[in-house]
């Protein structure tokens, strides 16, 4: 028997710790839990469009295996827990499209490292989530499969590029989801959808099997309702992978255990929060400013102190990023040539024509724009002026963070200058959209970890996110800091209408 509707509602909104308890106590089976979420996807996703592929059969099969493991007492923290994967993680036997026509027929013969780690942990993949095409965009509007809608207001974007994963978790179509973050693609949609999202230090999560956008910036990340859920998911995603040369060889950390410290009255006593002058100067919407200021007051109430810091070169992050990321993407996407897999034009006259037509048909407008920018900046005679210059800026930005982090333990600010915009509002102005990533992009350029957590709502009732940035490998500190904030507040427990 499926659980009664109130029980179902509880399960849908339960934390991973609660789900673990229910599964281990046999209050619910993994098959029942998966069915519950699959049914929600069937009911709600036609409107939200958060999923590109729903893998009902695969999910139920994995859930049966998880139930057997739990029965045998062999389960781990994630055994039997449903999740969703951003559709740029390769999944054996299941379509991996990157939300592109180019890969609309691509079934990977292998699993991404992250996917196989989560499979081994016993997590149950419900399917693959919508995204901006090849992760290029901040709104999910560049998806070949149509935009995902924001569960808080379906006339608005969920953010991007991991908008499908963020919307799925916000609407409780999945308890947790994977994402990737090249310039804010986990943190910005987490902010827009009112959930928690973490992008770890570059090199912590293997990129093997995560289809590349910009290799030196791409990093897998985790979505959950809370820092606690993110800690459990991220803990299962990290670990050295010899197949990724940029994977860092360091011992795995138990992020969830780090949260278990008892919550004292002032649990953040001694924590120095740096507030970059440049992030609070201008360009921030009033509703965002108010929510962030209130959250900072809450942090002070928890014992933290705030100190002004400066990131003088942060304003150069967007121009540097829009040279480096397109340069790398122009090369990374060259393999999509219609020769071995993916879309090939039906008719062509010769080799050049086949390449031209296949790529013209297979890629959307934003992807083409970035390939063209990248090709241009790497061209003979322009390389020094653009690419090398951008790499110099990148070093300056990283040095800014390094200097700021000598004066504070974490850096805080808004995740985004505004809240979720209306679908189509930025369609004719890509640069305006690029600018919305102003607070997140610098963090990728420096390779630092960052987390976004909900901290309130604006006047339109849209969620506002606060970003914390830490030093390299400070994931545990970012999660614990957020966790203490979430112990004292309930922003992370607010749900959009469809999940109440």
């Amino acid at each position, binding site marked *: 028997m499926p659980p009664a509707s109130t029980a179902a509602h509880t399960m849908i909104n339960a934390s991973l710790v609660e789900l673990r308890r229910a599964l281990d106590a046999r209050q619910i089976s993994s098959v029942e839990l998966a069915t519950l979420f699959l049914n929600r996807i069937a009911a709600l996703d036609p409107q939200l469009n958060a999923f590109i592929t729903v893998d009902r059969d695969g999910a139920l099969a994995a859930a049966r295996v998880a139930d057997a493991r739990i029965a045998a007492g062999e389960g781990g923290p994630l055994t039997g827990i449903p999740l969703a994967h951003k559709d740029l993680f390769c999944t054996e036997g299941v379509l991996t499209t990157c939300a592109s026509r180019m890969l609309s027929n691509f079934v990977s013969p292998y699993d991404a490292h992250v996917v196989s780690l989560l499979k081994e942990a016993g997590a149950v993949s419900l399917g693959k989530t919508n995204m901006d095409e090849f992760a290029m965009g901040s709104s999910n509007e560049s998806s070949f499969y149509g935009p995902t809608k924001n569960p808080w207001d379906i006339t608005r974007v969920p953010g991007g590029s991991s908008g499908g994963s963020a919307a799925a978790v916000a609407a409780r179509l999945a308890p947790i989801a994977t994402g990737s973050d090249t310039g804010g693609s986990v943190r910005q949609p987490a902010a827009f959808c009112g959930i928690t999202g973490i992008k770890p230090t570059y090199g912590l999560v293997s990129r093997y099997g995560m289809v590349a956008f*910009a290799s030196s910036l791409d990093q897998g990340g985790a979505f959950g309702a809370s820092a606690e859920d993110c800690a459990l998911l991220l803990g299962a995603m990290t670990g050295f992978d010899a197949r*990724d040369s940029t994977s860092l060889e360091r011992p795995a950390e138990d992020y969830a255990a780090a949260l278990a410290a008892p919550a004292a009255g002032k649990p953040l006593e001694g924590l120095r929060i740096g507030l970059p002058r440049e992030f609070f100067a201008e360009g921030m919407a009033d509703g965002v400013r108010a929510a962030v200021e209130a959250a900072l007051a809450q942090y002070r109430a928890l014992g933290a102190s705030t100190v002004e810091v400066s990131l003088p070169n942060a304003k150069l992050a967007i121009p540097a990023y829009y040279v480096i990321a397109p340069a790398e993407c122009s*090369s990374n996407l060259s*393999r*999509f040539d219609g020769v*071995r897999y993916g879309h090939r034009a039906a008719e062509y006259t010769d080799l050049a024509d086949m390449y031209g037509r296949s790529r013209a048909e297979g890629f959307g407008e934003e992807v083409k724009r970035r390939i063209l920018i990248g090709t241009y900046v790497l061209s003979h005679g322009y390389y020094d002026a653009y690419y090398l210059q951008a790499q110099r800026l990148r070093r300056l930005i990283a040095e800014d963070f390094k200097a700021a982090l000598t004066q504070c333990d974490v850096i805080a600010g808004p995740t985004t200058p505004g809240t979720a915009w209306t679908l189509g509002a930025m369609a004719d102005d890509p640069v305006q959209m690029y600018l919305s990533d102003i607070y997140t992009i610098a963090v990728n350029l420096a390779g630092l970890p960052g987390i976004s957590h909900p901290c309130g709502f604006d006047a339109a009732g849209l969620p506002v996110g606060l970003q914390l940035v830490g030093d390299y490998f400070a994931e545990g500190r970012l999660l614990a800091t957020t966790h203490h904030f979430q112990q004292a507040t309930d922003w992370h427990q607010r749900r959009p209408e469809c999940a109440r």
Partner: protein
Amino acid sequence: MSRIDWEVVIGLEVHAQLNTASKIFSGAGTAFGAEPNRQASAVDIALPGVLPVLNRGAVERAIRFGLAIGAHVAPTSVFARKNYFYPDLPKGYQISQFELPVVQGGEITIRVGEGDKAYEKTVRLTRAHLEEDAGKSLHEDFHGMTGIDLNRAGTPLLEIVSEPDMRSSAEAVAYARTLHALVRWIDICDGNMQEGSFRCDANVSVRQKGATEFGTRREIKNLNSFRFLQQAIDFEVQWQIATIEDGGKIQQATVLFDPDSGETRMMRTKEDAHDYRYFPDPDLLPLVISDDWKARVQAAMPELPGAMKARFMDEWGLSAYDATTLTASKEVADYYQSTVSAAGAALAKPCANWVMGDLAARLNKAELDVSASPVSPAQLAGVVARIADNTISNAIGKKVFEALWNGEGATADEIIEQQGLKQVTDSGAIEAIIDEVLAANPKSVEEFRAGKEKAFNALVGQAMKASKGKANPAQVNELLRKKLTA
């Protein structure tokens, strides 16, 4: 019009396939001749999401090469992407090294020409860098379509670039041969030119003798034999000189050599050259080579041909020519050294003569490599030793060698014994033979006494024949002369 004295300027780029078991950025095998696309992993066919991981064995071979030519082995070098579209280039870029190659500088000494005209020359190297090979496009057998075989994609290559230091096709070939021997000597490349393991591109230009500027060069691509290298350069040089003397100008270009016509033919000009948009590969960290790693590679380095050649000359008294010939390949050098160690250093010179003479000729006739010689170094040493101690004559030595070649016995001694080839040195026995010969050839005796020295040689020949070649020739000479002049 006065005749212009032309100078030829040549630089070579050699692609040596490194003999690692697996590819440079994946675990797939590298053996030649597998069924199409059966040695191509997810990384080699560039599936979405895959990443390269550098093969340390390839790096180690590059280090070995760098140390062998006295180059600077860069403590930090960088892999870059060379971007272009082609169906047999799965990623749409080739991972290579551009601004910071692993091997920088170095030099190779070559010996050009033979006999009195032979001379030595040092060719400087610009660099050697690691890169991956592309796959193959197969234009036949597919009915108007092209087949793609990605087995070769990702095979490790060391691209070895020389300075434009060569001044003739003979020098270019000598350099290529020396380099070919070296990469096999230090065991980084199998050198199989038919299978494409060692491919040469030649940059050729001409200028007036005494000019300081180089002429415009044309690059001849993909020469896979030393003969083609020579022919292509010779044709190209004549063509360039003729073009200039006819008032034309050389245009920078890439050309192909057609072995059937013996001509070079234009492939593309500089104007059609790709913009490869090189940039550092963000999937790979900079390649860091520690002093410790270099020291370990150095410690495992075999004695190099230059050092071995000097040792042969200093310790064993060989001539420069002999020492060069015997160190032309690792296999010959190994064979020669084994022969000397069996025969004794005192016999180094006759051993050299045998290895370069009778053995080389016999191997050549049988089209066999020295490593496949039916006569082992120890067996050959036995022949040399028996000649040296007068057990057999040089002529009988050849007979024993042939018998060993045919497997008629295990050692020279066994064959000498079984076939009764031991030299006769008993003066009594030789005198008896001489007496018979003198009695049977009164005419020759008469002629000799009349002053015809030639008749003496005829009598020696008769005596040797009568002894079935076994009589000691020196003794025959001596005793015969004694009898005739008595």
